[in-house]
């Protein structure tokens, strides 16, 4: 009973112990690999200096705006493409060209268009999230059971709007929510990169610390990102499970 949490705790402790041992053995310089035991101190100092929450709030702002815009536009465009054949025809090559461009490749344009600003970071974050949601929504709507659409016609719900609300949205919900969740993680991954070129946030603070070889501070913010991701994913999974309680 409960051997799983025990096993994973053991794994974590062993990992930290090996890390600590290597760091203390003097085999590697402490700037190359800070020991885990110095991390709490580094965190406390970042918090007491006021950096930690300022950076977290700033990054959170970029993240949430990027997440909101990227998901909303991605889902809307993906659904529109799946619903209207004419839109589908226009987007096919456009998506093929734009899709493989990584979000970070947009940094020059983000700066030219928005300056070194919050909007630039939000823009870069939203790009990766957009494509994930776009393809998830597109596939989800396309795979809605055609038989349920016929059913909806047979029972008098023949308008586009009725079909959308009664069949397509609920039918596509699992796929759309799956895409949103993937975007949720993707967003945190691009936050740091989007802030590397000077926009205040976790990423810029990491660059500062790295420049001073304060690698323990870098690790504090790496773990901060992991923590923020874990919190947002856990909260989202709760919401999703409530929305999709009809699934086995």
């Amino acid at each position: 009973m409960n051997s799983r949490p025990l096993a994973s705790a053991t794994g974590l402790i062993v990992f930290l112990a090996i890390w600590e041992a290597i760091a203390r053995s003097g085999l590697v310089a402490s700037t190359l690999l800070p020991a885990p035991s110095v991390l709490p101190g580094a965190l406390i100092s970042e918090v007491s200096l006021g950096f930690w929450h300022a950076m977290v709030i700033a990054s959170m702002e970029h993240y949430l705006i990027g997440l909101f815009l990227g998901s909303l536009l991605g889902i809307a465009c993906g659904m529109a493409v799946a619903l209207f054949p004419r839109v589908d025809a226009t987007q096919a090559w456009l998506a093929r060209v734009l899709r493989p461009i990584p979000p970070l490749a947009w940094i020059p344009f983000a700066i030219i268009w928005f300056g070194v600003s919050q909007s630039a970071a939000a823009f870069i974050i939203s790009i990766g999230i957009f494509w994930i949601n776009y393809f998830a929504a597109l596939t989800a709507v396309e795979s809605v059971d055609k038989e349920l659409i016929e059913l909806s016609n047979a029972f008098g719900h023949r308008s586009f709007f009725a079909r959308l609300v009664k069949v397509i949205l609920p039918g596509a919900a699992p796929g759309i929510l799956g895409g949103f969740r993937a975007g949720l993680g993707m967003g945190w991954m691009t936050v740091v990169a989007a802030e590397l070129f000077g926009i205040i946030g976790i990423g810029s603070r990491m660059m500062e610390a790295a420049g001073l070889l304060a690698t323990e501070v870098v690790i504090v913010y790496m773990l901060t990102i992991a923590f923020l991701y874990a919190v947002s994913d856990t909260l989202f999974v709760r919401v999703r499970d409530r929305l999709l309680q009809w699934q086995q």
Partner: protein
Amino acid sequence: MAAIVEIDNLAAAFDANGEPAGSPVFANLDLTIERGEFVTLVGPSGAGKSTLLRIIADLMPARQGNVRKTMQQSAQRRPIAMVFQEARLMPWRRVRDNIAFGLEGLKVDKGERDRRIDDVLRLVGLADYGDRWPYELSGGQRQRVGIARALAVDPDLLLMDEPFGALDAITRQTLQDELLRIWHETGKSVLFVTHDIDEAVYLGDRVLLLGGSPATITQSYDIAAGRPRRRDQEQVTEAVTRVKRGLSQTFEGGAGI
């Protein structure tokens, strides 16, 4: 008796998936269903049984011919309701809400809606299952919900497209008997498609054979056995033999059945 559906000289150029078919699916197809009658339609796969139901239900256009439906128009009812082979429940709706699907958009207030849902749930023997999710039901129970959903809109005509085709033999027999009881209690007209001749004879007042290419009604058998019927009753078994013979005559040398 008055006819509820009269079809004259029907031709359709669409197959069951709604794709335009090169050659017409039907030729000179005539069919009349009397009010309160239970008509079963048998024929080989691809003969156009499902297409015929869909044309009657206005889910598909006919290319030529006349489909005359004499039904009461009312904002509280739908004149035609359909039951499909796969129950086609919406997995995101509980049983009650699946049944309510056809009622949405009708002038039926909340109280009346609940009353009707309770009635049809009782009628199909699922009175305690209203709050279940579809995934919690067996195949037979799901099909009962499909029937309840169709009955809830209080239709004049029930169109049933091989509704028991995917069920095991025992569940199928049970549901056949329940369908006959429900038909008896509600007095609906039924057009029931199947490729099971025993089922067609046991259920129907009349068994129609659909066949040929393009298809038409090749034979019509009145089933003399009274009701309630027994499966082993002589009039039933004798009619089954007759229909089987007719079916093999119709299709001998033709496409495989």
